[in-house]
């Protein structure tokens, strides 16, 4: 039954794809060269954009996890190696800092009829990127386990801690929680998430002066540490894929995981019996009695390089608009949480949408946020391993950030 179903789905998908292949992108001539991160939704956008290739139009795409390291050097040269850089809240910043992408207002006016106003990322009044999908971490939990322990859906980290205690005490699971606490990008993202939930600001207004050394910062660190008491003792080696595997193995009852991995979870490849059917996607938890979900909202969008000819820029913009067209989204509703018009959210998007509706804040776009993220990624490890206290950890983060910010010319 299942293989037959899969076959039917792929046949339909093929038919749709073949139909779209003849779609008219309206491009006369030009070269489109796309650089993007490497995950399913972006690969889909890239292949859809590639349908615009014709005798006079070439479309190539490079989807790689190393895109962040490639984009600045690749767009700095003239003509740029790539005409399109697919970015997110954080990876657009280096391109903005070095003035490598062009304002898109003219192109939007001419070719952007299918775009919605909220897709346009405007900086200083100019459209610099076109967003097409949203992403956020949110709560995944096992309804069967929580029901057995007699607990309702947790709404805050305090609820999660209480639920974990109950599950452990009842002997339902030894390590009911998991988080992507691996030192590096993941661990820093956990801190940023929780800190956003406190409502605090990372920097003093209008400057690069760090402002996390306060009770909000302490609260975040305390909560992060308290959660680890209910985690596998190897918690410092798990990233998002690691906890996904642990959860699928049926070892975890609750985790705050990426919305972009919800589709993978629902597909349930490699999952233990009973895990997928009992999994509920819910909005991200709040922290410390706050009302804002303690996670960052992310968007993925495309930007057009500055150092290319206007013809290539127009061709690239049209190809990308085709890549994120409502038809593509209608044919692939479960791949991502699309921001495109006409999108009907599927079961995989419930968590992200609940989180966004609850008023979660976007990942900060300040030019020096990357430096803070790096400082957090290396300085929080010792605290999480229980080798130093929270005051020392915050002091270390500040010292490391100040050093880097001075070197980067921000302080």
């Amino acid at each position, binding site marked *: 039954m299942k293989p037959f179903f899969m076959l039917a789905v792929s046949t339909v998908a093929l038919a749709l794809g073949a139909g779209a292949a003849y779609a008219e992108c309206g491009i006369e001539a030009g070269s489109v060269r796309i650089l993007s991160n490497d995950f399913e939704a972006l690969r889909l956008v890239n292949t859809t954009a590639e349908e615009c290739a014709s005798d006079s139009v070439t479309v190539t795409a490079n989807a790689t996890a190393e895109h962040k390291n490639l984009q600045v050097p690749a767009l700095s040269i003239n003509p740029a190696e790539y005409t399109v850089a697919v970015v997110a809240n954080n990876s657009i910043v280096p391109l903005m800092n070095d003035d490598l992408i062009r304002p898109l207002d003219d192109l939007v006016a001419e070719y952007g009829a299918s775009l919605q106003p909220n897709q346009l990322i405007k900086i*200083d009044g100019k459209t610099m990127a076109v967003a097409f999908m949203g992403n956020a971490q949110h709560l995944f939990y096992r309804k069967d386990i929580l029901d057995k322990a007699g607990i309702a859906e947790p709404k805050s980290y305090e609820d999660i801690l209480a639920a974990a205690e109950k599950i452990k005490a009842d002997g339902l699971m030894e390590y009911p929680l998991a988080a992507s606490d691996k030192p590096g990008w993941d661990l820093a993202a956990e801190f940023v998430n929780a800190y956003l939930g406190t409502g605090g600001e990372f920097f003093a207004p209008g400057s690069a002066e760090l402002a996390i050394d306060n009770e909000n910062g302490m609260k975040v660190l305390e909560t992060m540490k308290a959660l680890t008491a209910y985690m596998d003792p190897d918690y410092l080696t798990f990233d998002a894929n690691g906890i996904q595997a642990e959860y699928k193995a049926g070892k975890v009852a609750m985790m705050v995981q990426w919305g972009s991995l919800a589709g993978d979870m629902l597909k349930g490849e490699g999952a233990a019996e009973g895990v997928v059917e009992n999994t509920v996607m819910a909005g991200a938890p709040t922290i410390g009695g706050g009302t804002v979900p303690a996670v960052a909202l992310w968007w993925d969008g495309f930007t057009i390089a500055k150092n290319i000819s206007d013809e290539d820029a127009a061709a690239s913009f049209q190809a990308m608009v085709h890549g994120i067209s409502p038809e593509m989204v209608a044919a692939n509703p479960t791949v991502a949480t699309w921001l495109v018009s006409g999108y009907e959210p599927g079961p995989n998007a419930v968590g992200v949408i609940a989180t966004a509706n609850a008023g979660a804040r976007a990942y900060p776009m300040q030019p020096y946020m990357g430096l803070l993220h790096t400082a957090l990624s290396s300085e929080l490890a*010792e605290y999480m391993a229980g080798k130093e206290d929270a005051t020392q950890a915050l002091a270390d983060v500040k010292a490391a950030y100040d050093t880097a910010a001075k*070197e980067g010319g921000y302080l």
Partner: protein
Amino acid sequence: MPHKTFFAFILPSLIAMALFIALPIVSVVVQSFHVEHGRILVEVESCQPFGGCTKETRVDTAAMSELKAAQPMGQFNGFGTYLNRGHLAVNEIGAILANNNGFGDIVTRIYNLPFYKALSFTLVFCFVVTPLAMALGFAIALAVNTLPKVTKGPVIFFSLLPMIITPLIGSLILYWMIQPNGIIGATLRHVFNDPTLSLRQSPALTWFSLLFYGVWTNAPFSFVVFYAGLQTVPADTLESAMIDGASRWERIRYIVIPHLAPLATFVALVQLMDNFRVFEPIVGFSAEANATSLSWMIFNDLAGDAQLFGSAGATSVLTIIGVVILLTPVLIRTWREFNHKVV
């Protein structure tokens, strides 16, 4: 050989060395003395799909490009980067020495500084792995040397495997094996009857796993060199020692080891240099929380959202200085031996 001919012979290599070794090092040194220009920040309004429009800080790119055109290298910072908290941390160490609660406190607080934390693991890795790997390699070489000819080939091939495998893949393989559900991890839990035992959670066990990996991956190099050396041990001397009634151990101790001593110096030199730039096992073992190395620091500076070239350059120069300091005793010894032979 006349000097002129000699010079003509090595000129191509000299040019290649200058181009591919000396010049990059010079550029790294120059880079390490510079930091980015002071950024000119402006407040602008930014609008996103979520949360509407907010005031945000941006870099004024027009003003920055003028600064960059005038001084493309950035600001000159002298030794500032070398002395800051991310590297030698002179001020922080001064503060720790001036105000502390005894020796233990000093050590803990200095270890908390990123450079010294990385340096401690790097040095421990060097000085534990090098001798152990050499001893293991020598032992394997002695064992293989006594094998019958038929079995020698396959045994040598298997002994070389750790060196053939790419270091990152090798460390990942071992990392998966020591996971709680991996073959080594599960066996250890069974043997010690401790269901919570995990080689990845405590710093001591992480260090132990990394050192174990280091010995495993470095032993084959010593083995190959020592095995080749064993073929040159004079058979006459060995036979006369046997006639004199020397045991196998005595023959190894008084004939083989002295014969191989110059080789050992060479192996130690190469291995120390290799181990000082330990990097792959830290990434492969996801051990960043408990162990970092100088090379890992360079990687960390260049891999983030914001790249710090000056900082990476300074760490690189400090690594080169470290290698030179490590190798000095060995080099002095080699130099003396060389002079001795000439005279």
